[in-house]
């Protein structure tokens, strides 16, 4: 027992010593700037200007600013619809790829491509596809007889929101698909056979065999994707610029405009700080799910202590 604790002590020393570069780097370039940033959100710092402490004034002004409130509503709308679409489409994609067929591997690789492309490339491509005069989207819809006049995609609130959702969903779905597929492939065939013998139809097999198995990975993917989607900036900024009339202005576009265009750095950071509790909540839910093994060990240890 004694030698074991001595070994742990040696391990501890080694673990931290070997990671000094990492710890120092992240403290200097990540932790310190964030703490400093939180302080600056309580000042009236502008680009090139000095900062003086103004307490909660930035936060008060934000919460009274209808443009800020609208940006939060837009972010929620954008995130909820995108995540729902990505979850449904990703599950369908995974189920389809879980069937054995010729060319499955090549299909899987091809369907992954949208996820691997640099986002900026994807965004510009959609902007061109939805071009009002020469875009292929209008042409296709016209030749299918669904519309008879060119739609101005970036000119109306609903359509502009639809374009940013499409751009986000197109690129994000393969992440769900591939994550869910990895889990699907671990489900034993005997479960399905047993269900079939019991007379379960396809829907019942999905609801009672597949879904319980893939529920966790769906939730995990959805939570990670939620963080990324709330964090979305360039899709919106380069596609619609937040327009028309702010109808697609999401939180990050608002914070970018405030900090970099109006040069109100303090208020810009306040936007991020107000979102921080949401991120922290999501991240801690995620960490709990992603570190399940040790959690279990701790619980056991806690139980053991209780019994004594």
């Amino acid at each position, binding site marked *: 027992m004694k030698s074991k604790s001595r070994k*742990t002590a040696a*391990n*501890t020393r080694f*673990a931290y010593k*070997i990671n000094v570069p990492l710890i120092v*780097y*992240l403290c200097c*370039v*990540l932790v*310190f700037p*964030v703490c400093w*940033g939180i302080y*600056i959100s309580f000042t009236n*710092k502008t680009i090139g200007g000095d900062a003086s402490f103004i307490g909660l004034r930035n936060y008060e002004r934000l919460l009274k600013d209808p443009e800020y409130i609208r940006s939060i509503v837009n972010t929620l709308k954008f995130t909820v619809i995108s995540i729902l679409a990505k979850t449904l489409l990703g599950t369908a994609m995974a189920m*389809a790829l879980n069937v054995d*067929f010729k060319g499955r591997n090549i*299909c899987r*690789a091809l*369907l*992954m*491509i949208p996820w*691997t*492309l*640099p*986002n*900026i*490339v*994807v965004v*510009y*491509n*959609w902007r*061109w*596809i939805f071009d009002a005069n*020469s875009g*292929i989207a209008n*042409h296709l819809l016209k030749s299918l007889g669904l519309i008879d006049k060119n739609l101005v995609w970036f000119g109306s609130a609903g359509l502009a929101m639809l374009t940013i959702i499409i751009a986000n969903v*197109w690129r*994000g779905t393969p*992440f769900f698909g*591939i994550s869910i597929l*990895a*889990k699907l492939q671990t489900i034993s065939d005997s479960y399905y056979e047993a269900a079939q013998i019991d007379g379960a139809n396809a829907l019942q097999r999905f609801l009672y065999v597949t879904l319980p198995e893939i529920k966790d*990975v769906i939730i995990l*993917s959805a939570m*990670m994707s939620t963080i990324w989607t*709330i*964090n*979305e*900036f360039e899709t919106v900024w380069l596609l619609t610029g937040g327009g028309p009339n702010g109808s697609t202005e999401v939180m990050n576009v608002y914070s970018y405009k405030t*900090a970099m265009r109006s040069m109100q*750095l303090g208020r810009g*950071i306040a936007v*991020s700080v107000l979102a921080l509790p949401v*991120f922290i909540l999501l*991240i*801690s839910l*995620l*960490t709990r799910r992603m*570190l399940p093994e*040790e959690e279990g060990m701790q619980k056991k240890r806690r139980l053991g202590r209780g019994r004594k």
Partner: protein
Amino acid sequence: MKRKLRNKILHRIFIALCLIVALGPIYWMLNTSLKSEAEIYYKIPTLWPEHVTLDSYKYLLTGTNFLNGIKNSLIIAVFVSLFSIFVAYPAAYVLARLQFKGKRVFSKTILFMYLLPTSVLYIPLYIFVARLGLTNNIWGIMLIYPTFTLPYVAWILIPHIASISSTLEEAAYIDGCSKFQTMYRIIFPLALPGIISTTIFAFAMCWGEYLYALVNLISSEVQTFPLVLSGLIFGDMPPWNQLMAGAIMASVPILIIYMLASSSLVGGATAGGVKE
């Protein structure tokens, strides 16, 4: 039997639909890049270019700053991904292999930093870099990018290292190897496939990064390719053929290395995925 056949047909149709939706836009990108400036603004878009021309590629490479942007992106992405592997590997190693005090807090902190979105960080880091006098400097960006690649690499490498059998390690201890030697001379080579694919993903994260670059890089000689591409857009009729040519050229290297690394991508996706 009939039902089975019907299901089979429906399944193939669904797969085909997925492929069309996933690849159609990419085909359109390629198609546009091969057209002349006049042809892209035809009233009825041509599904195959009337006159296939490489003019847009030629113009992009010779008449614009694009090549310089690619060079800058390449320097930054290579430097940051290699730096991240060497600094983050020890963290992944100790988290995968050793029992030590504060391990749980350590791994939680890494995961937390990995998931922390850029929106929280970009303004504080802008101020930080400005204070160091590194705004509008490639070094400023190379200082910032490890804030997301380091935690990512450390986190993603853990399962790769944990999957290596510990018997070799024990043998090395018995032969008198120190922990340091074991870490670099025994485990590092064995984990190399995982290390290479992780390096590729870290590279890809830096390659297309936009927000930090937009905020910190201003003058044309330091701009990365995403900024050069967005600089092409002005007026009502942007040169879409050139933009799409740039998009193709920026995507091809990434696609190639992804395909090479795709075997580890499939298994590793749920272990952490790639940051958007």
